[in-house]
């Protein structure tokens, strides 16, 4: 994995999301179905803005602290501030805001763990930024690769003060 460039950014965006409760392996098995749920809702409600709308995965818990059957992971899609949403089925709306250290990665599916490790253990814990009490997330700049050896652009957002 190549060392990422890291920027400090203020993020303030509304998202629609579907939340999964269970292990990360089970989440990965369900993520396509969850994405299709979000996409269908977003399409039906005219929420998709070409080249602007992004998809995120939000990690609310830590697998070393929370029992695997209780781990919460949300698949989310950015929406405009003006969008009027009628929350139905399992679709919710929330706002993500605050300051983040953002690692800009070009990685394959098998390199995600290494990228997260880098952001916490190499950048956050050895650097001067202070962590903020909020959840981190991945933002897919380009569509995630479908094959293990293919790469895509993903930003990892770490909340900081």
């Amino acid at each position: 994995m190549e060392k990422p460039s890291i920027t400090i950014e203020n993020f303030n965006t509304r998202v629609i999301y579907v939340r999964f409760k269970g292990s990360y392996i089970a989440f990965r098995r369900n993520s396509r179905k969850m994405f299709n749920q979000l996409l269908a809702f977003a399409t039906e409600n005219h929420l998709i803005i070409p080249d602007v709308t992004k998809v995120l995965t939000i990690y609310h818990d830590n697998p070393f602290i929370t029992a695997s059957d209780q781990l919460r992971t949300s698949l989310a899609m950015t929406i405009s501030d003006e969008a009027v949403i009628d929350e139905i089925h399992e679709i919710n709306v929330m706002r993500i805001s605050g300051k983040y250290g953002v690692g800009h990665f070009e990685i394959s599916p098998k390199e995600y763990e290494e990228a997260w490790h880098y952001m916490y253990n190499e950048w956050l814990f050895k650097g001067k930024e202070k962590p903020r009490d909020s959840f981190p997330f991945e933002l897919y700049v380009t569509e995630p690769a479908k094959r293990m050896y293919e790469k895509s652009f993903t930003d990892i957002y770490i909340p900081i003060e």
Partner: protein
Amino acid sequence: MSYEDYVRMINKTEDYIEANLSQSITLEAVSRNVYLSEYHFHRVFSKYSKETLNQFITRIKMERSAIYLSVNNKISITEIAHNYGYNSSSSYNKAFKKHFGMNPTDFRKRARMEKK
């Protein structure tokens, strides 16, 4: 209320708790957040959840505080207790030990060892 409605209600309640970690969270507040009466909220929550509402709120607060004290070595336990709506570090310590089986200081030390 269907299971899907319950999931949405729980998601909104989790978001509410996470946005109000420093507050003492009541049935009245979480019910109001999802536009339900206390009676209706309690009935739906009990129907689907294995935890009581208090256990649910405490678990989220304990796990969130454990994440934060693991990643932020500089913040004191007293400050964490205050940030999570506890009146004193001793009441926070007690709740933490009940949940994790060790006090926050030992938990932090263990997390530090695992990072190395």
